[in-house]
């Protein structure tokens, strides 16, 4: 196995996983461990937490917690702002859906995603958004009769 010097990120992962495992173990005990003859609801999550905690220690010791050597995903120029903007679009899309309804928001969200991904001009993204929104409404809302959030439109 190739040994990679553990970076800061790798340590963060180890601590995160270990902490999660420990938290799971403690809260499982509170849920009720039961006895082996009458196992309680906390027994299984406790074991999950235990595996997680132990493996995260192994991960630290082995030193391969996370090599980022080849991964440049978020290092591209402008990557981080784009990433954040997309996340914001997704969150707003869902957050506002019960209020403004499915159709209007899908139109806006499709438009926003297309623009964030650097679509040129406005005509093409607008057409894309309209077609996407229309088709998805036709398919899911009308033909499959799924009750999608309609918002204040009714």
């Amino acid at each position: 196995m190739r040994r990679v010097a553990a970076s800061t990120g790798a340590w963060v992962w180890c601590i995160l996983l270990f902490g999660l495992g420990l938290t799971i173990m403690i809260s499982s005990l509170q849920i009720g461990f039961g006895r082996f003859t009458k196992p309680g609801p906390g027994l299984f999550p406790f074991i999950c937490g235990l595996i997680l905690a132990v493996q995260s220690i192994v991960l630290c010791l082995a030193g391969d917690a996370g090599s980022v050597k080849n991964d440049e995903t978020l290092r591209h120029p402008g990557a981080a702002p784009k990433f954040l903007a997309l996340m914001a679009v997704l969150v707003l899309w869902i957050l506002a859906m019960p209020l403004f309804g499915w159709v209007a928001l899908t139109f806006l969200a499709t438009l926003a995603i297309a623009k964030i991904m650097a679509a040129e001009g406005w005509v093409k993204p607008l057409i894309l958004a309209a077609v996407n929104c229309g088709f998805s409404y036709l398919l899911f809302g009308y033909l499959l009769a799924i009750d999608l959030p309609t918002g204040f439109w009714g």
Partner: protein
Amino acid sequence: MEFDALFNGFATFLSVKYILACLIGALLGTVIGVLPGLGPTTTMSLMLPFTASLDATFGIIMLTGILVGSQYGGSTTSVLVNIPGEAASVVSCLDGYQMAKKGRGGAALALVAVGSFIAGTVAIVGTQVFAPLLGSAALSFGPPEFLALMVLCFILLSNLSGDSPVKGSCMFALGLWLSAIGVGPLDGVARFSFGVDDLMLGIEFLPVAVGLFGISEILITAVVPYVPPVLEKIRFRDLYPNGEEVRRSAGPVARGSILGFFVGLVPGPATVIATFVSYALEKRVARRPEEFGRGAVEGLVGPESANNSACVGSMIPLLTLGIPFNAPSAVLLAGLLMHNVEPGPLLFQNAPQVFWTYIAALYIGNVVLLFLNLPLVGIFARVATIRPVILMPVVSTICLLGVYCSRNNLFDVWVMVAAGIAGVFFRIWRYPVAPLVVGLILGPMAENSFRKTLLMFHGSLMPMAERPIAVAILLAAAAFIVVKVVYYALRRRRAAV
């Protein structure tokens, strides 16, 4: 005598009406299989009242068509846009999507279609010959056997993807824990729900899988600058597999077919188990295991064959025991009952013609699906060549809607987005996500079998040693570890020399 019965089954079939039923079913199945969120279960329940007003054979043929068709369609989105539409297609994302990225999407889909066809046919022959014999085998699977099976799965899974088994098992444990959130299946106690109503429902597989694979792919694609593919225009030849790919697929299809059939007999999420056991097997026997996860054709075709074969195989417990072990077969059972056909140990005595019509429906459905799917490959493969700026907004809409309509619940959509964001970080730090998803699916089964075994044996696990099937499975797990350790030891020694 048996062949007479089968010919009678085919004879029943050879009317325009029934072939039409099969065609409609297969087409519907393929379409809903392609759309994530709409599974065979929902579609079949929607169609049930509709088939009730038709004659029994028509209804059964159509429902079968839907079920088998959805298995074909399921892998399409996995390969093309990295979204597993159903649990059994998770493994197909690993290598299938990588193939599509290399421009071999069409080849991948064509191979899957042919592989599925072969595997399906093998399993039907198996069903036809062995169904009466193997039916009761499913009953010998009690909690201890399931527990042993889960141990085996744990060991196979940590080896599923990525380079580090430790990371794999971390993710698997995380998946198992996620599955424990919500109201427990055995005792109705709410766990880790923090008083949130929606968390009491538990975390579903679909939003997590669509998030980890699909949404994180969208996020990453959006961020990375677009590089136009070298091949602007796809030639017809490029849509279909080349000689080498076909040669490399033969073994995995054969192994996947047989493996899937037997795993299909096991009650529970058989198709999921079949896919990753097949993946682990292919990775082990492959001449170039390092290609796995980077677009190895074996890693796609093997599991997909196993999936279809397991789907057919899982019909055996339904037909011979009358007990549905998964949701789609529960609906199929309802359909059969609605037409006064009672599957069960007495099916062969009371209504053999139903069994044989069913077998004939499977055969013909499989052929129909092959001819339906091969031309579709050409159409679907072009999806992979659409520029991301157009494709990604559409795909994210489909993800969102698909996840929403699986339970009509916005909470699931939140889970999907959270999983998508987490997925980006998992991917950057090279944590494999497939074990997490599979852990989430197998979690309830692992927990239930563990607790039921403890209850059954009054708090001890030792009596498992008296149960031959459980012992055999545990020995297989041990053998896997030994082989792996020896393999590493040998390689290290060779490296040292």
